[in-house]
């Protein structure tokens, strides 16, 4: 396998190799959490962001989850109104999180939203289904083409036990995705 890859790399030029590297590196770093879809809806002046994202646990992260280590996913949403000649105006900013934990007593996964609502689920797929179409109440804001949406979803490493910090260089822990697009680009 490796021999064939090297043989291929020898035949191809540097530009191709670089492009391939860029492509794969994007896949690696965006890997574990990725945003499938994002949309906005408005209901009686109240705007909602509908977030559809997926979380894939693998390697050490999955092992830690199954050992009962709580894993918190933090979501940070900022919406700015772009100004051409002045500083951007932040019209919305809110942090949310949900925490996953395997409960050995119940043999179930516990999903908790913002420390309030707790549900118990049989497997990770059930969790993923619960994460489908998350609604984010934005309140009464007016979104325009000049609005810029900045969404960061990532593993909150600060909530992990200290002993794990030493292993955080493992790629499986590098769970983070950043979305920074204008409202116009999204729709």
């Amino acid at each position: 396998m490796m021999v064939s890859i090297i043989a291929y790399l020898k035949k191809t030029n540097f530009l191709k190799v670089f492009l391939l590297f860029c492509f794969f590196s994007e896949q690696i770093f965006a890997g574990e959490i990725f945003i499938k879809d994002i949309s906005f809806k408005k209901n009686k002046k109240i705007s909602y962001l509908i977030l559809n994202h997926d979380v894939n646990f693998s390697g050490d992260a999955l092992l830690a989850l199954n050992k009962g280590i709580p894993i918190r996913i933090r979501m940070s949403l900022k919406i700015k109104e772009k100004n051409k000649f002045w500083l951007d105006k932040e019209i919305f900013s809110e942090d949310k999180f949900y925490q996953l934990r395997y409960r050995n007593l119940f043999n179930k996964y516990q999903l908790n939203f913002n420390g309030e609502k707790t549900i118990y689920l049989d497997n990770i797929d059930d969790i993923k289904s619960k994460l489908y179409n998350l609604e984010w109440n934005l309140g009464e804001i007016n979104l325009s083409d000049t609005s810029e949406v900045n969404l960061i979803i990532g593993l909150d490493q600060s909530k992990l036990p200290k002993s794990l910090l030493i292993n955080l260089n493992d790629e499986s822990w590098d769970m983070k995705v950043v979305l920074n697009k204008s409202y116009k680009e999204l729709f």
Partner: protein
Amino acid sequence: MKYIITSFALIGLSLLIFLAKSLSNSDLISSESFRALIFFNAFFIFGLIILIALQIYKLFQNIKKEIVGSRLTLRLVLSFTLMVIIPVFVVYLVSFNFLTKSIDSWFNVKVESALQGGLSLGQKTLEILMKDIELKSKSISYSYGNARKDDRRALLFDLRQKFGISEALVYDQQKNEILEIASDQYKEIPQLPSSDDLLKAENGFFVKLVESDDTIFLRAYVPIKYHENITKKYFLEVTQPIPSAILNVALSVESVFDEYQQLTYSRTSLKIIYILTLTLVLLLAILSAVATSFVISRRFSSPISQLADATRSVAKGNFKKIIPDQGKKDELGLLVQSFNSMTVQLNQATLMANKSRKSLEQSKAFLDSILTNLSSGVIVVEKNLEIILSNIEAYKILECDSDFFNGNLNKLIKANKEFNEIVLFIKNFANSNKNQFIEKEHKILFNKKEKIIRIQVNKIKNLGKVLFVILMDDITEVTKAQRHQAWSEVARRLAHEIKNPLTPIQLSAERLQMKLKGNLSAEDNIILNKSTDTIVDQVESLKVMVNEFADYARSPQLKKESIQVYDFIAKIVDLYSSNNIKFTFSKFNKSLNIVVDKNKLRQVFINLIENSIDALEKIKEPEIKIAFYKKNNLLIFDFIDNGDGIPEDIIHRIYEPYVSSKIKGTGLGLAIVYKIIEEHDGDITIINNKQRGVKVTFSLPYNEE
């Protein structure tokens, strides 16, 4: 640098405390900041290593430059470092071993089995509770479905109470509404069951966990089958809380199990993190201690270095060096004060010594000046004739190098054997017990030239030591002058006393011859003539002698005039052209003029030529060479003949009257020559040629006027 090191040490200590606290107290520092803390510590350690390396480099540079105190600082630093490293390293090894064994001891099969068993117990209990709620819900559902329509509500309430269920409700899926609710206490309308839950319940039973108000409930869904075979779908929802006593125990077991699982998972990480922390603590402790040891070592070595530096300065003669007194009352402070006091005293003593030395030097310079300018030679010797002082005039008089005056006086004999007499004279006096001084004139030959030296030896006592001061004067010229003076006086008297009666004697003899010429017999006549002739001849001789004496005694009044030297000498030589002597001129310049008393200079040349003629009488090829030439401000005359020369025993006294190698000579010729040259402020030397003959060299001051 001192403040930097102190700051570093303080920061290191703070980090050390933070690190230790963060391990024991999770709330104090978050996981994220803990990682930052570890990195910061590592970075700080790196900084400390660089700082220490710089310090070591600086210290070695100081040692290389031989800065005082740097070696002491190095020793102190090494001592402090060893004092810290050895115990801390031992503690580290023990802690390392203890830590790894402690962590390993946390995990063993028994503990894991016990925890697993406890958890299984909880799980089984939960299963039993689920089974219980399943039976209860199914029983209620069956009873509710088969009861008469009117009795159903009462039955639901009755069964809920009977089974000890907290809440039971009947849900109409088609209408999506709750038909019946039986609850011992509900304040708000319960949520409608989710379609997912109902879908799962369609198979007969579904139970799920619900968490509310810190209590976990079991919520079961069972389809209701009415005996009327109604096609509509009805579901029974039964909610039963897990008994708190069971739940709390089960949750605590789960909590411990989770913790154990987490520890198991992070076993290696834990080891690494604790060892890393321990290593960081060790490094921080050691490096902070080493960094601090530089400051402490410098504090210790600083006063000692200052003392050493000051001592070096004092050794080099700088007695003004004062060490700043830092007001310390310890032994070092006392040492500094004592040192300062010592240097002040030394400085005062040195100033006094310098003053004395200057005074002594001035006295010595004064004495040297006197000795140098003294016309007499001075030599100071000890009793054993060791010379302790001599002046330049002594070297000149004795015509010796100064080297001969270093050491014993006997060394002078090596320079000239003639000095033996002088040395013996001094030695005899030194060995005698005479307290007076002695004086004696010594005639010493220097290159065939006689010198009369008057030696006076004085015995003095200086600081209890007997010294002999030898004063010597070259009295050759004085003696010569005195001798000439005496001879002049004699000559003058002779000329005066003898010349006057000579003419009457001669006339009387001639008259006697003339009167008695015819009156005597032939025999008597012969005797008369012979006697009178003898008288006349002798009178003539006496006249000549008297004239020479008169010339010698004549007063030195010179009538100087300018003459052309060559013509002057040539005319004199012409007078002797009849003689069979070859006169040769060399090294001459015909145009040379000189201002002299020409009659006296003529006398000089005549006397010299006359002397040479006498000396050349028996020479086959007699020759006289005359040369004159200018040299510096002198006109030098060389007069050389190839005669018999002058006997060596009289040549050094040849200028004296009545000293002559000739049988007939009066011995006044060269004495007159010497006197004339001396009157002209000139100089004359007479030596025998190496082969034969005499060389007379005289010089006269050259004045072109």
